[in-house]
């Protein structure tokens, strides 16, 4: 069986996989990183989103071997070593942007990519459009949008001016 070598959350791994092994299977089953979820079988829900070389992608729709030589970040790789949450995680907690939490890892990974790629600003419509690859069956999205907007301000070092 072939080997795949990749860096996950700052640590290098070489793992034996099959041709058909999905990246999400490598992460969850071989590396024990079960924070990345699988919510659908149709590439639509976004629960499995991770970053490959800084881009958010669906790890259920990526072969492990396609990720050979790349740098992957999962939800487990966000918080600081002392447990301090990433600003996006902190914003989700602060704004009650999760209920059951199933969609949350993918939502947070997609949201970080969206915020990082849009330093010029993000309107509410931009956030909703930008997160359309992530489905949430609990929150109704309102608080997720608020959290992402708040995290945009923290991540880009801008003062948060309260709306209304």
């Amino acid at each position, binding site marked *: 069986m*072939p080997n795949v070598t990749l860096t996950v959350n700052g640590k290098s791994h070489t793992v034996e996989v*099959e*041709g*058909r092994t*999905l990246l999400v299977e490598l992460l969850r089953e071989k590396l024990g990183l079960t924070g990345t979820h699988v919510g659908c*079988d*149709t*590439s*639509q829900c*976004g629960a499995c*989103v991770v970053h490959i070389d800084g*881009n*958010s*992608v*669906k790890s259920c*729709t*990526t*072969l492990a*071997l*396609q990720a*050979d030589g790349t740098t992957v970040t999962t939800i487990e790789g966000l918080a600081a070593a002392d447990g301090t949450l990433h600003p996006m995680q902190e914003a989700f907690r602060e704004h009650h942007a999760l209920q059951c939490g199933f969609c949350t890892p993918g939502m947070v990974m*997609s949201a970080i*990519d*969206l915020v990082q790629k849009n330093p010029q600003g993000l309107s509410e419509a931009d956030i909703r459009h*930008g997160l*359309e*690859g*992530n489905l949430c069956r609990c929150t109704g999205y309102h608080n997720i949008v608020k959290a992402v907007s708040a995290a945009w301000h923290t991540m880009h070092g801008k003062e948060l001016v309260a709306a209304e």
Partner: protein
Amino acid sequence: MYDFTYEKPTAIAAATATLAADMEAKALAGGQTFIPVLKQRLNKPTVVVDLSKLGLTGITVTPSTVTIGAMTTHATVANSAEVQKAIPALAHLASMIGDRQVRARGTIGGSLANNDPSACYPSAVLALGATITTDRRTIAADDYFQGMFTTALEQGEIITSVTFPVPEKAAYQKFRNPASRYAMVGVFVAKFAAGVRVAITGAAQGGVFRHAAFEAALSANFSPDAIAGIATPADDLNSDIHASAEYRAHLIGVMSKRAVAAA
């Protein structure tokens, strides 16, 4: 998913040799269609040939053409300042495909090789009269699309790039299926000195097609009013749980008028 051997060649000749030697070998681009198909066990390849290391990415713009490498992602086309300037409708179309994660991996070559009847790119290729370049020849858009999921590509033939002529004006308007985000009806309108071309995706059983009646009317008068009175027959259109053939026929008129107005 059935297992397969995975290869990532670094030369086009090596990729085509593998694909030619084995009828069950298949190319892999962004995987945003192919991996879901594999998961459903609808396809059982022996070898999967990853095209990502063949140097098929990149965008080249001249005053009269835009050439896009087959492995260029939808996100790259959508965000390209050069494409936005030369053919803004093409960048807009790419920005409307799926979601950000699909756009980060899905490629123009994969979309065209697959020729899904609801895919967006086929409408741009057909309306702009683009040329598809493969490892062995060039194919005009009018000869390339041969019915849903069917193209002029031979077994093992690899698309390397697509060249679009720059139109005077163009626009893409898409009525999205709210769940899948594919086109329920998508209309690409392109105006050239020689006339207007209109391609419709998402609607017909046979996949993307040119709308001759709209093209004639718009070539005479490029305004939404010019096509307001022209009905599209529903005979060859798709009926499914999302929309009836009659509704799709109606949407073709509405989205075409919007596209002309937006161009």
